[in-house]
Structure formats: C-alpha cells, structure tokens
C-alpha cells in the first residue's frame, strides 16, 4: 500500500463510535472499530458479516454520511478526512509521554465535490426512493445538485440515457416510484447513483431485499456496468454466495472489525480465520450428496453486545482455538502471502 494512486479509495484505522445512554451511564457503541482496507479502480471488494457487525456503518461512514470518530480516508490520492492519529507497525496509536496520542495534521474537506465521485445504492428499494417524486426527478436530483446540465432538454436527455443504461423503459420517466416492482425500483436507485458518473459506489445490501431471480438480474447489471464504466464497488452483503460471485476480493467482518481479507477464490478455497471457516460452512450447497459429506461448523453462544466488547480478539468468546493471548491482546491483520490478510494469533 505504498503508492496511493494505485487505489481509488483507501480507508485506514476507521472508527465509528456512537454515544449510547443506558440509564444514567453514558456508553460508546463501537460499530466500526479500526477498519482498514483499500480498493483499486474498477475492482469489487465484497464485505460480509452477520447482521449488526457494522457493514452498513462502514459504507455510510466512509461516504461521511456519519461523521467518523477517527481514521483517515483517502480518495483518488487525496486525503479527504483525517483525524491525525498516527500508528506504529503493530497497529497501535503512537502516544507521547503523557499518554495522549500524537496528532498529525487534521483534514476535513468539504464533501460536495467528492459526492460526485462516490455514490451509494441503498438496501431497501422501498424506502430509498421519495414517494413524492417522479422517476425523472429522482434520477435528476444529483444532476440538479451538481449543476450537470445547461438546458432542460439536456437534463431530460441525460435522465433517459441513464434509464436506458439500467434497463428501464423511458416511457416510465413520469411515474412515481411506488408504481414499480422491487427490481425496477432498485434500478432507479442505481440510475440515481450513476447520474453523477462516480468512480466508486457503495452497494449497501443492494440485492438483499430482492428475490433470487431478480437478484441475479441486478447483479449481472452491476457487473456489466463495471465493465462499461469502470466503477469500483464496495459490495456489502450477508449472502456469501452473492459476494463470492461478484467480488474480486472479500473482507470478512465481525463485531466492527475485519477478520480476514483476501482474493475471492483464495478466501473460498483456503480460509484461515476460524470465523470465516464457520461462515463458509454455513453456505448452502446445492448438491445434497456433497452437502451430506460436508461438516457444518456451528458456533456456540451469541454475538457479544458491541457495548461490552470482549478484551483482545472480539471473536475469542466463540472461538474453539482461543487461548490466553487472545484475551489479552487484539490480533492485527497480518499478510499470509498473496495479500491474504488474517487477524488471528493461532491460525
């Protein structure tokens, strides 16, 4: 990760804590805790993990829809946000003699110009479109906000072009969102994200709300658009099969932290982290013969509350390889060859 320009988006030590009041006690919910990853132009990074592990928050925080608690976000070689903490090679914050972190330069750029480059497709196609607006206005809003046209005809032309691109009938431009089916609505959402011609799109569970046949259509469309326009995706999902299909690389998240990150095939064939192993074993296998032979790794217990995180490794309470060291020190992501990064002491 030496050359910044190699990546379209680079996230380092991103943290997002939400203040929570529990009775009189004020606590912090660590939704995203020290997450780092990078995405190359035209690449798809899949982000998987169970519900509530902070996948969506990662997507929203790196677009700065939430104000990050700490971390550094670099987009296209430009630092757009940095709280200034510095880290040593073990991933620990460098502190001075009094125990305060040594702060570098703080950077907090205005997001408006970057909104044109980074967009998002939302999970729920029913609530992500304003019921009061026609399709034309929904897709046209980013054009309005960024002033991307000179005449009304030009605006209309662009909207129709976008609708065609995502496979919507141009005659439906005057209709309201509720007149469409789920798949069509998701296409409207995608057209809205594409309107500003972004280089990077966060797909936040973009296909989870659709049924399987429509999922396939929309995923194929995502792939075609990537070929045509060269956009990079952060593809957030909880369905490993879908992610495996679309992603170049996959990151596995657990309780706000990345556990393992590797090329899609590598992760699939050679998973290292015990959590990834159990996730992969839970993927349904369409062939009953193989399914009977394969062994399901069932995790014991529940996900700990993000309000009361276990010390050390967050996964240690459910991990069968857990040792003393796991409770004391948090493992950091280390390269196991070919960019296969794993955060585990034992494996």
């Amino acid at each position, binding site marked *: 990760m030496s050359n910044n320009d190699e990546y379209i988006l680079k996230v380092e030590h991103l943290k997002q804590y939400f203040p929570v009041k529990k009775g009189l006690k004020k606590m912090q919910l660590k939704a995203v805790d020290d997450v780092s990853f990078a995405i190359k132009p035209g690449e798809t990074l899949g982000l998987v993990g169970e519900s509530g592990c902070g996948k969506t928050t990662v997507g929203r925080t790196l677009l700065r829809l939430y104000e990050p608690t700490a971390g550094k976000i670099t987009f296209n070689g430009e630092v757009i946000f940095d709280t200034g903490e510095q880290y040593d090679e073990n991933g620990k914050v460098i502190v001075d003699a009094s125990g305060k972190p040594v702060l570098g330069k703080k950077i907090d750029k205005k997001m408006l110009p970057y*909104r044109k480059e980074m967009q998002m497709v939302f999970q729920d196609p029913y609530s992500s479109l304003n019921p009061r607006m026609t399709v034309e206005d929904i897709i046209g809003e980013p054009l309005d906000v960024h002033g991307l046209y000179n005449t009304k005809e030009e605006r209309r032309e662009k909207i129709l072009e976008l609708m065609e691109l995502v496979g919507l009938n141009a005659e439906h431009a005057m209709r309201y969102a509720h007149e469409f089916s789920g798949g069509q609505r998701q296409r409207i959402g995608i057209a809205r994200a594409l309107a500003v011609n972004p280089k990077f799109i966060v797909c936040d569970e973009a296909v989870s709300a659709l049924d399987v046949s429509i999922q396939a259509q929309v995923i194929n469309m995502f792939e075609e658009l990537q070929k045509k326009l060269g956009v990079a995706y952060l593809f957030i999902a909880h369905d490993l099969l879908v992610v495996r299909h679309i992603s170049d690389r996959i990151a596995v998240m657990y309780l706000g932290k990345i556990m393992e990150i590797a090329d899609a095939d590598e992760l699939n064939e050679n998973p290292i982290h015990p959590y990834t192993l159990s996730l992969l074993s839970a993927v349904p296998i369409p062939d009953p013969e193989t399914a009977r032979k394969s062994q399901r790794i069932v995790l014991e217990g529940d996900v700990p509350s993000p309000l009361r995180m276990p010390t050390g490794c967050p996964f240690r309470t459910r991990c069968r390889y857990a040792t003393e060291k796991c409770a004391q020190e948090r493992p950091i992501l280390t390269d196991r060859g070919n960019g296969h990064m794993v955060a585990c002491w034992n494996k």
Partner: protein
Amino acid sequence: MEQFKKRQFLSSQIDLSKFNADSFKKATDDEKKQQDVMGESTTFFKDGMKRLKKNPLAMGSVIVLLLLVVIIFVAPLICPYSYSAFTQIDGRRDGTATNLAPFEYSMREQEYMDKTGKSLFPHICGTDNLGRDYFIRVIYGTRVSLAVGFVSAFMVLIIGLLYGAIAGYFGGTVDLIMMRIVDIIYSLPDMLIIILLSVVLTQRLEPLLVGTVFAKLGTNMISMFLVFALLYWVGMARLIRGQILAIKNNEYVLAARCIGTKNSRILRKHILPNCLSVIIITTALQVPSAIFTESYLSFLGLGISAPLPSLGSLANDARSSLLSYPERLVVPAIVICLIVLALNLIGDGLRDAFDSKLN
C-alpha cells in the same frame, strides 16, 4: 392468405384472409416515432390538482364555498339594509318592523309601498327584535366567521410549521427544549388563558389601533387572532414535528444527503412534501374549529363586539326566542354547517389528491 381463413365461426383465431401482404409491411421511422408518446411533464402540484378536479364531492364543496364568498361580498352591495341600523323609511325609524317573518313587510313599509307604488327590498330572513334586517346580519356574520377561521388557521399553520419543522429536523437538545415549551403551553387551561388574554389585550390594543386599518376590525377581533396565534399552534407544531421525525429517518433522505443535497433543499423537496397531506388536513380542520371557538367566545361576550355579528353570536342570540322564531337559529346554523362540511370535504379531497401512496 387463404389457408389462414377461419374454419369455425366461433373460433378466436384472427381471420387473416381479410389482410393482404401490404398489411404486414414494416413500419417506417415516422410511424415508429408516433409510438414514442411520452407523458406530459407534470409537477407534484399539477398532478394533485388534476386528481382533485376529478373528485366530485371536493369540487362541489369548493363551489359551495366560492358561492358563499361571492354572496358575502355581493349581497351587501345589493341589499339596502345595514347590519347595525334599524330599518328606516324615508329617513325615519320604522318602529313596526321588529320580529318580522321572512318576506313579510311591516305596517309602515306596506303603507309606504301602497302610497308611492314603489316596491321595497324584501326582508329575506325577516328582522330581529330590534328591527334589523336578519339576512344582512347573517351575511356579515358569515364574513366575520370566515375571516376568523381562515386568518387564525393561517397563523396557526405558519407558526406551527416553522416551530415543528425546526424542532423535528434538528432534533437533540434543540428539540428537547422546544418541545418542553410546547408542553407548558399545552398544559395551561385554554379557556382561562383566552379570557385573560382577551381582557388584557383588548385594553392594551385599543390606544394602539386608533387611526390604523385595524381600528375598523375592532380590538376584540384582533385580540382573538392573537389568542389563536399564541395558543393553538402547539397542536400543529407537535404534529409536524412527529411527521418530520418519522420522515427524516427514511433512506431517501440519506440518499439525498449522499448526493450532496443541502439541508434547505432536503426540507423543501423531501421532507415537507411528504408531510403535506397531514399539514393540509390539519389546516382545513383548523378553520371550523376556529369558527367554533370564536362563537363560544362571542357567547361569553369576549368575542366579536356588538353590533358586529358573527354566526356564533347570532345563533346564541336566537336561543332565547327559539320557540317563536326558529328561523333565526336555523339560518346561521345552516351556514355554519355548510362552511364546516365544505371545508372538511375539501380537506379530505386534498388528502386523497396529494397522497400518492393512496392511489
């Protein structure tokens, strides 16, 4: 083509023998273009109005209300009687013109008409116990009631909308403080405050109004507007705050922020249109409720001051002579009913027209 002929009379097969080779030519580009019909670009407002026009009940109510408005402006120009003065003949007070039935002339009027041969304008609703023409009093009463209703509904809307929108959109501490103020106002007994305010305000306002346009309206009317403005916006503010709280958590608001939309545009384009139906309904219902409040204030002597009538005070005055002259209660009551019913139906129609989720 012959082999495609229908074999059986009832078969649903298309009878191709009627066509020839020309019928199956490819369409030219011009013909194809005719198929690309695109709907007219309409705004949200235009679309809603189009739907409203298709609703016969709402349109009927609009017509009734417009008719009433025309009548209250035109009738005083035609009708020679005044709402405050006694019926006069040749510049002299007609003492016999009290308590007349509808379309009845008094003894003196009858004599005058017989003598001169001229016809006098009839007392359409008769006269009251002081000899004032009742029709013109009802007309003026309608004017006052409608003015009170619309002006106070408008003030409630403006104050409630601004207050509720700010509290709901910014949330947090701002919301907390603003809503506690609303709670305090809510917990005060309405009637007591209204009585206190009207007494105090009437005295305070009197010297201020002399010589201004408001002097004509009377201090009571002004203080009543102020009372509505000060007390009745809280319900509206609460309602709008609740709506905005619910709407701002929708993903489309997040999507708009993701696009880079400014706060003011988000409020204008995404949040307000989505609580428009609630705003319209509440405002439409605020009008009749203000009319009712005005009439019971008038009954207590705190509302519109005599001789200016309002529909409420007319109805109240008629109670004492209900058995002898029932028409004096019936006429203003019918007018109140018409106004309130029309406004409610219009409100319903507006909601149906502007709530695209219902269609």
